[in-house]
């Protein structure tokens, strides 16, 4: 008789469990350590400190928007500088990478004149740009990769987006989401990437289409895109809603 093997081992879901416990902390707010420092005890309500931090983060957003130069390009590198092996990163471990749904298409909505969904074939017919740029993670590490795809400004103009709108929001079929300010969305190096290192994106690198934006921290380069919305209502995002600085410009 063979012992029945558990469907999920504890080691498999360890990152998820860590994630859950971290998110529980977030619910309490941004500043557990701060209050521990100030009071010597672990309080669960400290909205005053959180409110002050959020006010400062909004100030940081305004400073970053003012510092942002739409014509300044992120440094580009020769092919020899590409980091190998390239590090996988997502809000879930690599074994949970989602495969591309059958009948995938990219939805567009909000302040756009043409809301027809896009197939990959239609996207491939648009002009392409290739870049070798540094992907900098909010955690501090960085790596250089090569992506090519449709510049987002080309795509936004093609769908008749209101370019005076404040935000461009991205939803992904892996449950992720993020959003950009319009100025960063229109930056020439912001692309809807289709290829990674001269080959079509594979699921772990964000197939079939991902955002690649070297003027922001890595978590803004959302993988596995499902929908794009142009809006004036602050869309937030997966990490932004938990307290990551929204603008997070480089």
């Amino acid at each position, binding site marked *: 008789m063979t012992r029945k093997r558990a469907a999920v081992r504890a080691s498999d879901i360890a990152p998820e469990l860590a994630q859950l416990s*971290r998110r529980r*902390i*977030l619910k*309490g*707010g*941004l*500043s*557990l*350590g*701060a209050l*521990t*420092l100030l009071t010597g005890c672990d309080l669960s309500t400290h909205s005053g400190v959180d409110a*002050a*931090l*959020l006010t*400062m*983060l909004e*100030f*940081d957003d305004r400073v*970053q928007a003012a*510092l*942002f*130069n739409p014509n*300044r*390009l*992120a*440094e580009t590198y020769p092919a020899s500088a590409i980091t190998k092996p390239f590090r996988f990163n997502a809000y879930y471990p690599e074994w949970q990478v989602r495969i591309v749904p059958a009948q995938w298409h990219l939805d567009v909505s909000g302040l756009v004149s043409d809301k027809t969904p896009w197939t990959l074939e239609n996207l491939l017919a648009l002009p392409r740009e290739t870049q070798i740029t*540094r992907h*900098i*993670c*909010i*955690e*501090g*590490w*960085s790596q250089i990769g090569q992506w090519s795809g449709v510049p987002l400004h080309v795509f936004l103009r093609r769908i008749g987006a209101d370019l005076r709108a404040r935000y461009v929001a991205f939803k992904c079929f892996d449950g992720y989401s993020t959003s950009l300010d319009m100025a960063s969305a229109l930056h020439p190096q912001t692309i809807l990437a289709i290829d990674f290192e001269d080959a079509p994106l594979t699921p772990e690198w964000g197939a079939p289409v991902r955002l690649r934006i*070297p*003027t922001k921290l890595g978590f803004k380069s959302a993988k596995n895109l499902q929908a794009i919305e142009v809006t004036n209502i602050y869309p937030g995002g997966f*990490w932004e809603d*938990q*307290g*990551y*600085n929204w603008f997070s*410009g*480089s």
Partner: protein
Amino acid sequence: MDRGRNYLAHSLPVRIMHWIGAIAVICMILSGWQIYSASPLLPFTFPRWMTLGGWLGGGIAWHLSAMWVLFADGLAYLAYGILSGHFRRDILPPRPNIILRDLDDALQFRLGHRLGSYNGVQRLLYMGVIIAICLAVVTGLSIWKPVQLGWLTGLFGGYPMARIIHLTMMALIVGFLIIHLALVILFPRTLVSMLAPVRSELDNDAPRGGVR
């Protein structure tokens, strides 16, 4: 006349800027340890109780908040230090042979210290930590804005190197703080003089700042 006892050990602006800066630097270090621990450069992370922010996002929020306090306080202090003569009079280290003499005395625990005048070792340490904090702020800006301030990031050898220098400056500042706090514990009256208006201990005929 600029004579010793007529002056405070530390002027009111220096005392105010010292404490604002101290709080900002400690917040920057503790929240920086939180950020460091998300992707450690060396084979260790900081235990959570030693860090500020609770998690990476909270650490970043603290870091991006306290940095403005440090930036404003630091700029005010640099301007004051230059314009008031505080740097030239109190901080500028003496000739190397005097520093070496004071260092030798300090290591044998016989270096005297009178409020109102810094000896060669103190001057070297204070100038060192001021430079280290300035470099921490500038490398910090260069890794916060490696595109918009790309020229600055390039000056430090690119993003990964700028990050290493940033963390090295943190380590130097922490090293300074350990020495600084140990000496304050050994000589508590220096703490009082940074809190309250305490008169200089120099002789009446000694010049302010007490150049020896």
